[in-house]
């Protein structure tokens, strides 16, 4: 049977059409987004309104729940870019990203604020230098994790447990346990709005990161190699791929993603609290990868589905904040939705639905043949 055969069909029938849609990995995450948005539309038709207002500094800004979702989902979306690659290549997850974000943020503030833990002005130059230093440091921490995983063959979760435990202490140590703050409003542009541009800056940064990742996947073999390594390391090796380097590389890329997240995070509040910044973001990032329908055991991945997974989590958070839910019940609500989403996007469930529709299709085809 060749492709030509399957294309040569008489009439598209409903089950075939659905079968085709269901087959796509990205279907479930998109459906989840639509369901969550539909729920909001029904409960509060005003949920989707977007307005152009002015912020305190008098600059035009867009506001509304959708903008909030795109804005606040940025860090997670950036993080899953790296997390997806790490998952694919190493078959495990990096749980130290939250701690590494704290370190990156701490480094940025250390350079911007100096030893006073206070900065009244933050020039573009110094912020850029600070960010670049944070990038280098985060990539070094990524390399540390990557080396443990690829060279020493330690399970990713165990390897990254080191930084997970020690990272926030390192972050605090960088600033001598002080809590630096930046009072220059221009520092807040990164996590807020650049004067004259009504779109939240974090979202712009996210778009840039996604484009860069898309280019990376298009103009290099990173995607193919990391999947190959994740599926069959031994075979990849015999095809001339260096699995150690590929795994290492994915961790370094994830390190770079955490540096960008760190910059956005410290800019949002012009400061840092070591124990609270990017708290539990590693779990959300792993969840986003899973919600995207990617196997956490490594192998094939779908980057777009992961990114949508990240926004699903943010939509859920924003939705829960938008309604009067008791503080104590918040996590329970979140857990219920997450369980449902994880189950429907599990590869096993997807394969079942896929098989179900394939069966319908094959039967239909057989019947048609008999009639003919």
């Amino acid at each position, binding site marked *: 049977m060749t492709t030509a055969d399957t294309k040569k069909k008489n009439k598209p029938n409903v089950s075939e059409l659905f079968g085709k849609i269901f087959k796509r990995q990205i279907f479930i995450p998109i459906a989840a987004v639509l369901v969550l948005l539909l729920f909001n539309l029904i409960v*509060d038709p*005003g*949920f989707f309104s977007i307005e152009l*207002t*002015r*912020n*305190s*500094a*008098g600059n035009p*800004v867009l*506001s*509304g*729940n959708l903008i*909030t979702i795109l804005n*606040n989902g940025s860090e997670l979306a950036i993080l899953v870019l790296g997390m997806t690659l790490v998952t694919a290549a190493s078959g495990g997850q990096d749980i130290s990203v939250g701690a590494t974000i704290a370190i990156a943020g701490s480094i940025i503030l250390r350079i911007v604020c100096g030893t006073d833990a*206070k900065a009244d002005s933050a020039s573009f130059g110094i912020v850029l230098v600070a960010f670049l230093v944070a990038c280098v440091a985060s990539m070094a921490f990524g390399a540390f994790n990557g080396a*443990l995983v690829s*060279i*020493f*063959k*330690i399970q990713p979760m*165990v*390897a990254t*447990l*080191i930084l997970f*435990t*020690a*990272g*926030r*202490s390192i*972050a*605090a140590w960088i600033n001598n*346990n*002080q*809590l630096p*703050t930046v009072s220059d409003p221009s520092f*807040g542009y990164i996590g*807020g*709005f650049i004067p004259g541009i009504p779109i939240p800056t974090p979202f712009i940064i996210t778009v840039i990161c996604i484009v860069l990742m898309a280019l990376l996947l298009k103009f290099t073999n990173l995607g193919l190699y990391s999947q190959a390594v994740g599926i069959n390391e031994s075979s990849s090796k015999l095809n001339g791929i260096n699995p150690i380097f590929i795994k290492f590389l994915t961790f370094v890329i994830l390190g770079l993603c955490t540096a960008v997240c760190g910059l956005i*995070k410290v800019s*949002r*509040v012009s*400061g840092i*609290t*070591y*124990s*609270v*910044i990017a*708290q539990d973001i590693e779990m959300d990032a792993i969840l986003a990868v899973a919600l995207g329908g990617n196997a956490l055991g490594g192998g094939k991945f779908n980057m777009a589905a992961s990114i949508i997974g990240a926004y699903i989590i943010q939509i859920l*958070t*924003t939705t829960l*904040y*938008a309604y*009067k*839910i*008791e*503080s*104590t019940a*918040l996590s329970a609500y979140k857990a219920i939705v997450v369980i449902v989403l994880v189950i429907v996007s599990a590869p096993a469930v997807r394969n079942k639905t896929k098989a179900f529709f394939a069966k319908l299709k094959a039967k239909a085809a057989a019947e048609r043949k008999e009639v003919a």
Partner: protein
Amino acid sequence: MKKRILAILMVAVVMMLGITACKSGDKKEDDGLIKVGIINNDPNESGYRTANDRSMQEMFTEANGYKASYAYSLKNDEQIAAAQKFIQDEVDYLLLSAAGTSGWDTVLKDAKAAGIKVILFDRTIDADPSLYEASIVSDMAKEGETAVNWLKGQALKEYKIIHLQGVMGSAAQIGRSGALDATAKELGWTIVKQQTAEWSAEKAQQIVQSVIDSKQSFNVIYAENDDMAKGAVAALDAAGISHGVGKDVIIMGFDCNKWALEELLAKNWNYDGQCNPFQATYIHDIIQKLQKGETITEKTIILDEKGFDAATITQADVDNYGI
């Protein structure tokens, strides 16, 4: 194989460094100094804890007649292990800010048997009061009352409050929420939104943003710590809503971080309630009394805590009380 063992060792070493930074003093002969073992929470936990630890470090110096050893952990069992070690080291006083309230009976009995006097600070525990000499604590409920009374005194025409709670179940959250809940009920204040932001500025920002997006009006933000107030203010700024003295929205925070008091001084915020981390002087007084053979009559000592109003705060207040 060798590589793997090496790596595991690396893991172990780094993890130990990460969890506890344990500085224990050498055991030496009597040199006239009072030996104290101090068990505290991790100073990285918050600015409050950092200030608390700093006040301890500044007080219990050799110049002041002390020889101090420190142990830090956010985990009860690690703290208990540290306490046992201090007992073996035969310290004179064990100063304890417990991570959890229970499980301390046995080790405190051991301390008592060894003639070591125990002073609790910052947090109480579920144990027989005879096991410790004194307990120096903040009254979170009173902090809340002070703040709510101040709010009552503003005599607003109408109260529409966004209430940002800390981590649910923590002492600070229970005390500070309790005061507001009671008064709001009594006086018919509207709580526009009550949600936990888990002490996080980012989460507070998102919650306030969601209220703004849903077009509900409000004129007070009651945040149970400074970070959350800061996050809330970031959301207001983005939406162009004015805040502070004489503006549309009243901003209230807790903990008296230096930067927060500066916001008050700049009249961007309205109120900040103190949660006094400077407990070392109280402990010092108690130790001096005990050394002279006096007895402590009142075991529970409530710290003096202030509330600062943007209208009256001075630079001196910022310098003295900012943490």
